[in-house]
């Protein structure tokens, strides 16, 4: 979708090095190295208060970094803000509009604020954006009368006012019903299919897991994991569960197979072990080895940890806000 030079050079859509943002009393972002490749749908995950929105504010030049470098679409931010931001559509920390203006009038004002947006095509682009989020019929209504979900849609429409190379969507499904959530997911997929890079933050893995190609996980201001979905899954663990009366022999066999078994527990007829997912052989191979060593296998399971388990393992499960 883009013909820009940055795209040709294959520079990442977003790249930060050692990004730090400190407020008076706390470090909101503690040195993160984001790498969002062109064309990716990047899920930026983390519990509430983990620094996602602060990071997004710095990426978009709303807030200044305390330390570190930020490059968006191949250009340094906030220095090249004026050339970068017109190519970026963004929804940051919920939608915000003038309640006394209609939905369409709000979009007109935002479009007028972008010096590069041609006034000639304004009407058409607004109509197009409103149609894409299903708000055509509510375009003339004052935003005061909009539901939260409608405001959220209008916010997404604002992000789609022009041709964009990058979309930054901060919790885009907040306030949407399940139907609306599905629609947003669909919209993200379509935009990505057009070649737009999408950076979408969420505190719910399930919401983005289906559409993302890449994931970054924030926890307490740090980027604790980043990579493609497959890479992330590979760094997880598998849980082995074996039912046998020959526990001692079984552990020996497993150790011979090269599975580090420090965590293996023999409890009567049960053997359990947590193994790094990347090094575990196929389950049928393990069972074959066990049987060859005359271990009476009465039950066997090897369950790879789900991405959800991994996410919880990385960020902690508690309901409590960590800081």
């Amino acid at each position, binding site marked *: 979708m883009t013909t820009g030079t940055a795209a040709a050079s294959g520079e990442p859509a977003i790249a930060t090095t050692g990004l730090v943002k400190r407020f008076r009393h706390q470090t909101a972002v503690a040195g993160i190295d984001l790498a969002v490749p062109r064309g990716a749908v990047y899920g930026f995950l983390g519990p509430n208060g983990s620094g996602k929105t602060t990071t997004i504010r710095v990426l978009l030049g709303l807030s200044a970094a305390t330390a570190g470098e930020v490059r968006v679409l191949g250009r340094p931010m906030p220095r090249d803000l004026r050339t970068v931001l017109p190519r970026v559509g*963004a929804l940051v920390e919920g939608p915000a*509009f*003038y309640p*006394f203006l209609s939905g369409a009038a709000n979009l007109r004002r935002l479009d007028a604020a972008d010096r590069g947006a041609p*006034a000639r095509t304004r009407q058409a682009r607004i109509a197009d954006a409103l*149609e894409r*989020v299903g708000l055509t019929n509510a375009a003339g209504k004052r935003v005061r009368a909009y539901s939260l979900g409608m405001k959220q849609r209008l916010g997404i429409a604002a992000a789609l006012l022009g*041709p964009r190379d990058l979309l930054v969507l901060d919790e885009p499904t907040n306030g949407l019903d399940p139907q609306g959530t599905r629609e947003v997911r669909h919209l993200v997929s379509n935009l990505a299919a057009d070649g737009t890079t999408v950076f979408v933050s969420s505190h719910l893995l399930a919401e983005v897991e289906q559409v993302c190609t890449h994931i970054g996980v924030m926890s307490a201001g740090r980027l604790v994991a980043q990579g493609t979905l497959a890479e992330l899954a590979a760094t997880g663990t598998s849980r082995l569960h074996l039912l046998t009366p020959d526990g001692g022999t079984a552990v020996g066999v497993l150790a011979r197979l090269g599975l580090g078994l420090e965590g293996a527990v023999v409890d009567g007829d049960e053997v359990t072990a947590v193994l790094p997912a990347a090094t575990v052989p196929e389950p049928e191979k393990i069972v074959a080895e066990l049987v060859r060593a005359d271990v009476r296998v009465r039950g066997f399971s090897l369950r790879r940890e789900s991405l959800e388990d991994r996410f919880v393992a990385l960020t902690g499960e508690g309901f409590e806000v960590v800081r």
Partner: protein
Amino acid sequence: MSADELTTPGPTSPGTVAGGRASLRGSLLASELLTLFRRRRTQAILAVLAGVPLLIAVAVKLSAGNGDGEGGGPPLIDRLSHNGLFVGVTALIVSIPLFVPVAIGVVAGDTIAGEANLGTLRYLLLAPAGRTRLLLVKFGGAAAFCLAAPLVVVVAGAAIGAVLFDVGAVPLLSGDTVSVPESILRALLVAGYVAVSMLGLSAVGLFVSTLTEIPVGAMAATVTLAITSQILDALPQVDAIHPYLLSDHWLDLGDLLRTPISWDSFGANAILQVGYVIVFGALAWARLTTRDVLS
């Protein structure tokens, strides 16, 4: 929003962006003016200001009807019954100490803080509006309101006066008499003088507005500063600072009501106001361009 609609790709030609630089009609300044003047609150403020001449005219009309003859009112107000066109000017002079500064304080205090409060500030900056450009546009809007406010008083006053009183040649402070067209011109000049007088206060309001995300706070602070300036201006003990006070020339518009017109106070006022605009404009700029927009 059906799945089918969503598959329609959006406009995909970034090359066209460079074309067609926005004319005034579609510009951010035009958008600012439309947003400001179409807002109910702005219209209500202007309506209140228009009510001042109405109140004065009705009061004078009623007291004149008493047959009391020589009233004890201020000389300017007494003149009203001789010429309706002066109702507006009188009302404006009465409004200078409080009503007009309050109106300006509300609009100027809201400029940045109001946007921050709604959250629209971040979206304007993401558009990107540019922080300096946004500040200039906001000051442009406030300046337009500085002109609109006194104009409304003068025009509403002239209209009410024309209905309630005679319209004819107007005696000035110097004793000369001017024709109706000349007196209209003088009334507009007075409105212009007040507009210039309020530019400095607008810049102060703009600066205060960059300090907070609570528009009411910025409004109150701006109005308080306007009142404080007038109080200090009335204290002879601090006459050393009088020439630098925002409100020092606010009431010096008598010069415009003489023949020939003396432009001295207009000039002195303009210089003072421009000074305030430069100083507080620079402070507002320094603040807004370095601030983290977190709202």
